[in-house]
């Protein structure tokens, strides 16, 4: 185990960084799209139902199958991986973000509108800070999911920690399997910890219990 680490730490680090990069890019793109989608579906109940159930259906497709379907269209590599990860995240994030905005007391919104906020000010000064705790909860779940699905993305040549894990499996070489598992689980746990902390901060702020 340790011998493997000492011999390969630089390539392991590179794969870890690739993994983090894939996850971060996916989450960033996912958030942008999901926020826009959420704002859109908040306007209509029917639209909300259609969008959420479509995303639900997509979410239920196994990731390996989705990668396989997309290879002929998008080819191999990071791009395809990120595309799939973004699609999976939509279900988690859109549900969370739209629920977060719905959870805001309508009288707060009415007061804001009545005082003459335009819709951008209302969004940035009132809606976003108040919705942030629940949104971050969604980002946390999405991040952990993305970290795990991203390991599978190595089968389409996207790189990342899956490379170590699947190499180990193929070669039946225990240290590789273990390191691959430990690193991806560690990454997920760390991301979870950090986001739990941010979530807490945001929720203190939103309920007026501390200044941040």
């Amino acid at each position, binding site marked *: 185990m340790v011998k493997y680490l000492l011999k390969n730490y630089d390539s392991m680090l590179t794969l870890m960084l690739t993994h983090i990069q894939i996850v971060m890019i996916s989450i960033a793109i996912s958030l942008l799209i999901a926020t826009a989608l959420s704002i859109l579906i908040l306007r209509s109940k029917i639209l909300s139902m259609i969008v959420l159930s479509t995303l639900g259906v997509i979410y239920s497709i196994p990731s390996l199958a989705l990668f396989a379907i997309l290879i002929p269209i998008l080819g191999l590599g990071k791009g395809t991986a990120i595309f799939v990860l973004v699609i999976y995240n939509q279900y988690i994030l859109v549900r969370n973000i739209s629920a977060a905005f719905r959870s805001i*007391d309508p009288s707060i919104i*009415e007061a*804001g509108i009545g005082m003459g*906020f335009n819709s951008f000010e209302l969004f940035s000064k*009132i809606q976003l800070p108040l919705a942030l705790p629940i949104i971050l909860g969604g980002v946390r779940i999405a991040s952990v999911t993305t970290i795990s699905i991203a390991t599978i993305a190595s089968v389409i040549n996207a790189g990342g920690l899956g490379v170590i894990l699947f190499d180990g499996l193929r070669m039946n070489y225990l240290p590789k399997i273990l390191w691959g598992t430990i690193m991806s689980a560690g990454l997920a746990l760390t991301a979870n910890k950090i986001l739990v902390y941010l979530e807490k901060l945001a929720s203190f*702020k939103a309920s*007026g219990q501390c200044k941040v």
Partner: protein
Amino acid sequence: MNRIAIEFIKVSKKFPASKQYAVKDISASIEEGSFTTILGTSGSGKTTFLKMINRIHELSSGEILFFGENIKKLPVEKHRQKIGYVIQQVGLFPHMTVEENIATVPNILKWNKKDINLRVDSLLDLMKISSKDYKKRYPRQLSGGQQQRVGIARAMAADPEIMLMDEPFGALDAITRLNLQEEILKIQKKLNKTIIFVTHDVNEAFKLGDKVIIMDKGSVQQFDTPRNILFHPANEFVKQLVSSEDILQKLKFVRASDVMIPFGMSERDGDIRVNENVDLKTLLTYFLMGDVDYLIVEKANHEVVGMVTLKELKIQEVNSGG
């Protein structure tokens, strides 16, 4: 004659989901500096009436003038920034301190920091909340009454020309409500603000309003002073509504000069003199507490103008005399 602050010209409003008009063909003028209450049951259209003024609800037909100009002329945000808005649920921003809440509109209008600070302090002072102790607190740390005080302060922050209040005291306990009613009356008289105030509480409407708009089924049933509404109800609906008011309430809206008879005797020791503007409820307490048969009515300059006996306090006399 004061300027007209708000004028409704044949205003109707129909919500997309509803078959009936929420408000139908309303024309009314509200004077600058007046305290107008809108009284009605739920579904009477009173809140729609109010919320069309700051365009929370857009009217379907007709027009509303704001100091002579169509409210649609200005961009909607600019229009709303000129109007103070207070709602029953208060709607303070929970993630902002009391100070930041009150500074909302001045911040949108980009006042400088010093002016905002001064304004926040003076408003908290006006609303009888200690600025030193509460400025930095968050809404959740305040009682319901204090929250609404901050809500009113926030609405007045940029010195709006008119204030719209939608059942602002509806969720408060009776004692807090009475206190806040007294205070808003004082503030209104002091600052001469135009206030339009929606309530379903008959007492509150008559106590606060210089004029009362009574609404039912989307139209104005009567728009008059509390006194005229009480003694000359315009129709059966208004009559029903105010007949539930007890007689003591009604006596509050009649002054001594309205019912007095000539004073033909010479004044004796121990006679009580009252000002001609004192209301009949106060006069009644003199009769109940002291051993008097009549009260002498005088003007502010102490000139005797008449007298009142118990007989004049009878409500049928008031009815014919009012």
